[in-house]
């Protein structure tokens, strides 16, 4: 998909206030979470999106490049451009051993022993690129297609298009932390707030801050409190802002919050899971334990009808291995390996992998050369060529799309793809035409 097409898709139609208000006056509720029919038969019903913020070194994880060994410690055979190379053109082979895995025989790093066992279930996109080289702008591109703030994340677009299958839970939920751009990584921006990604934690006692009723408040009082908030909001809307979509969304959000009080606690209750499942995810493991809860919670939310679950893997720049990659990457891989692999097995066993689209990606990859040659070596950001994977949701398992050059530096120009293409693919698999998924934003400005 050419980027220019994607740009047209996201261009907000020029319209005046009358257009938007007209829509409201004829009873069209654009801030509605009720399930909507896709444009055509979908292959996927729901999405789980692993957000590996920081730039995972995919050439050390699942994109083996034997040529790196040939040039290890020597200058690269062609110029490597970077951001903070410290003038280094010195190639660094992956310090880790790779093994042939599964029927597909793909080579996966021994850093990911659990993923090695499920690799036949996934589809690799091996020619990913992005036009941004710094974390913040690249992460905006990663989730919104735009390298700056203020645009809706893909989860918000999906929620807007399809709504939720469970009226007691939001359509879009974000689990954990790990975005340089914070909550903007799951923001609805100028889409109505009801499509915003709701932050949740994998904490059975408080999956959402203050979701539980205070001890000294009765259920009846809580009900009356929420009813009064709604009545006050409706009164304000009637008196002052009868056409305000944001206020309508806020009222809807409060109503949803009330319904979530029971449902969110139920979904976060891992006691309903068997010991075998807890073990599969590695819930008792010291390193993998925290991420296992996020993955299990993601599955429980998806099963409960949440359309789009975004799971953050690692806080801040954890995956940003500029220095000491040999010291850092093993622990990062150990943190995610068992649980993300278990999730694929679990989804398949439950028969829902076939219509659940699982996506794993960072905002960019890492260069084949050494950065910080005066300290323990690491790798700089690589926006020119990296890998990501997807699974389930009607995709061809075991298939690899595209490739990078012999060093894993740049994507093959014939297969070059970007996050925009991934977003268009996600929407296509969910059964709707991305060009028709537009929002009549009330503005006098023309967005490009």
């Amino acid at each position, binding site marked *: 998909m050419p980027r220019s097409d994607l740009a047209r898709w996201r261009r907000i139609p020029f319209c005046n206030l009358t257009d938007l208000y007209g829509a409201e006056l004829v009873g069209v509720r654009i801030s509605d979470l009720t399930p909507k029919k896709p444009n055509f038969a979908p292959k996927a019903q729901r999405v789980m999106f692993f957000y590996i913020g920081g730039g995972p070194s995919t050439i050390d994880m699942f994109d083996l490049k034997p040529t790196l060994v040939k040039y290890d410690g020597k200058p690269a055979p062609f110029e490597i451009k970077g951001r903070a190379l410290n003038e280094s053109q010195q190639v660094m082979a992956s310090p880790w051993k790779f093994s042939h895995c599964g029927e597909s025989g793909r080579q996966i790093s021994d850093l990911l022993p659990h993923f090695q066992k499920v690799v036949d279930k996934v589809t690799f996109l091996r020619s990913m690129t992005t036009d941004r080289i710094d974390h913040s702008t690249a992460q905006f591109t990663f989730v919104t297609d735009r390298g700056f703030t203020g645009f809706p994340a893909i989860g918000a677009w999906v929620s807007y298009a399809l709504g939720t299958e469970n009226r007691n839970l939001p359509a879009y939920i974000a689990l954990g932390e790990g975005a340089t751009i914070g909550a903007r990584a799951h923001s609805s921006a100028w889409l109505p707030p009801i499509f915003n990604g709701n932050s949740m934690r994998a904490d059975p006692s408080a999956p959402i*801050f*203050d*979701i*539980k*009723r*205070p001890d*000294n*408040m009765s259920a009846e*009082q809580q009900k*009356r*409190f929420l009813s*009064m*908030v709604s*009545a*006050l*909001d409706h*009164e*304000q809307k009637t*008196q002052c802002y009868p056409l305000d979509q944001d*206020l309508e969304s*806020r*009222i809807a959000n*409060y109503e949803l919050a009330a319904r979530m009080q029971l449902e969110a606690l139920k979904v976060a209750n891992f006691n309903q899971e068997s010991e075998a499942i807890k073990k599969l995810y590695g819930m008792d493991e010291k390193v993998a334990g925290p991420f296992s809860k996020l993955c299990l919670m993601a599955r429980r939310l998806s099963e409960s009808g949440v359309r789009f679950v975004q799971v953050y893997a690692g806080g801040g720049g954890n995956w940003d291995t500029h220095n000491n990659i040999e010291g850092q990457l093993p622990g990062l891989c150990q943190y995610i390996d068992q649980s993300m692999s278990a999730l694929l097995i679990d989804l398949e066993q439950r028969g829902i992998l076939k219509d659940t689209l699982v996506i794993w990606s960072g905002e960019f990859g890492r260069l084949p050369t050494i950065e910080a040659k005066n300290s323990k070596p690491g790798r700089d950001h690589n926006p020119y060529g990296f890998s990501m994977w997807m699974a389930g949701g009607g995709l061809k398992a075991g298939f690899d799309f595209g490739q990078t050059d012999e060093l894993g530096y740049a994507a093959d120009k014939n297969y070059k793809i970007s996050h925009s293409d991934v977003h268009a693919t996600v929407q296509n698999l969910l059964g709707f035409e991305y060009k028709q998924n537009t929002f009549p934003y009330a503005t006098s400005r023309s967005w490009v």
Partner: protein
Amino acid sequence: MNSDPIMRTTKAFTAKMLEETNNDREKAVTLAFDQIYNRQPTEKERQIAQNSMSMEANPQEGLRLFVQAMFGANNFLYSY
């Protein structure tokens, strides 16, 4: 809006409103609107407050619950 700080704040705020109006609950509602929203209540809003007070065995708790709702409502976000 279920946090301990909001529960404590609304309790203290309600006590202050009643103290400043010599326990006149109708005036306390008017004063609460002035202090929280910087405006007078509408007739419907007065009615909501009255209902809340009449439904609690202790009307002060009904007023507190109403004040909590005022802090939770959209109007509070944009008051100045």
